């Protein structure tokens, strides 16, 4: 039982990445901070995940602005025409 607990703490990248994502938005509880901190100490893959996750947030947060500047999808001409005439009435 005890061994399992230790294993949970030390080699659970699923849990560690979830805590990483959570920590970007809220303050983690003390036990969560300890768990994540210990994991990151020895897991270089999760350390990289943390860095990359932060970069992704920057790109994701620009999605909306980009959508306005360069809308990736275009309404069909037909829809535009229909709408144009509906709105004139």
């Amino acid at each position, binding site marked *: 039982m005890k061994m399992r607990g230790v*294993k*949970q703490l030390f*080699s*659970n*990248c*699923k*849990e560690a*990445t*979830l805590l990483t*994502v*959570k920590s970007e*938005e*809220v303050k983690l509880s003390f036990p969560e901070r300890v768990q994540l901190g210990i994991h990151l100490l020895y*897991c270089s*893959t*999760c350390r*990289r*995940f943390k860095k*990359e*996750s932060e970069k*992704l*947030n*920057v*790109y*994701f*947060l*620009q*999605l*909306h602005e*980009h*959508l*306005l500047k*360069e*809308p*990736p*999808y*275009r*309404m*069909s001409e037909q*829809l*535009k025409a*229909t*709408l*144009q005439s*509906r*709105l004139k009435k």
Partner: protein
Amino acid sequence: MLNPEKWLEKYGDYLYSLAMLKTGKKEVSEDLVQDTFVSAFGAIDSFRGGSAEKTWLVSILQNKITDYYRKKDVLKDSDDYLQQTDTTFYSNFFDTESGHWNTGYASNEWLVTDNPSEQKEFYTVLHKCIEKMPAKLSGVFLSKFMDENTSENICKEMNLSPSNYWVIIHRAKLLMKNCLELNWFIK
């Protein structure tokens, strides 16, 4: 000056794109955008004008998208969905035995030279990756990142428990990261 006849030209494709990303369906998005403009023009007297016309239109569309989610049960039973797919989803990324990342995931450095967000093609890839995400995840993901909604609001609006919210964001992040690595960062 209020110039509603220009709105279609100015915001049409933008609103349509917003609807496309959030519903993933052409016909649905066309209907939602039509309804948005018709409602907006019908309620034009209640709109006071100014620079907030874009925000106003987006909020009308957003209400219609929320109705659509509700009617189609897009966000219903998220709890069951997350539980039933837990093992299959996470075993793609993490070894069930060791708890560590599977080989091939997150194992390579990104090859980033310029800031990708300045490149148009990067967003094309990003949009494709969002399209591939299951609807149960993408609605929450977009609400957080595209609408910059808070977790409390999203949980309330979409009837989610905080722990399910974190799982959804976690899964969405893993999927997006993987998709972007395959198609942009490490290809």
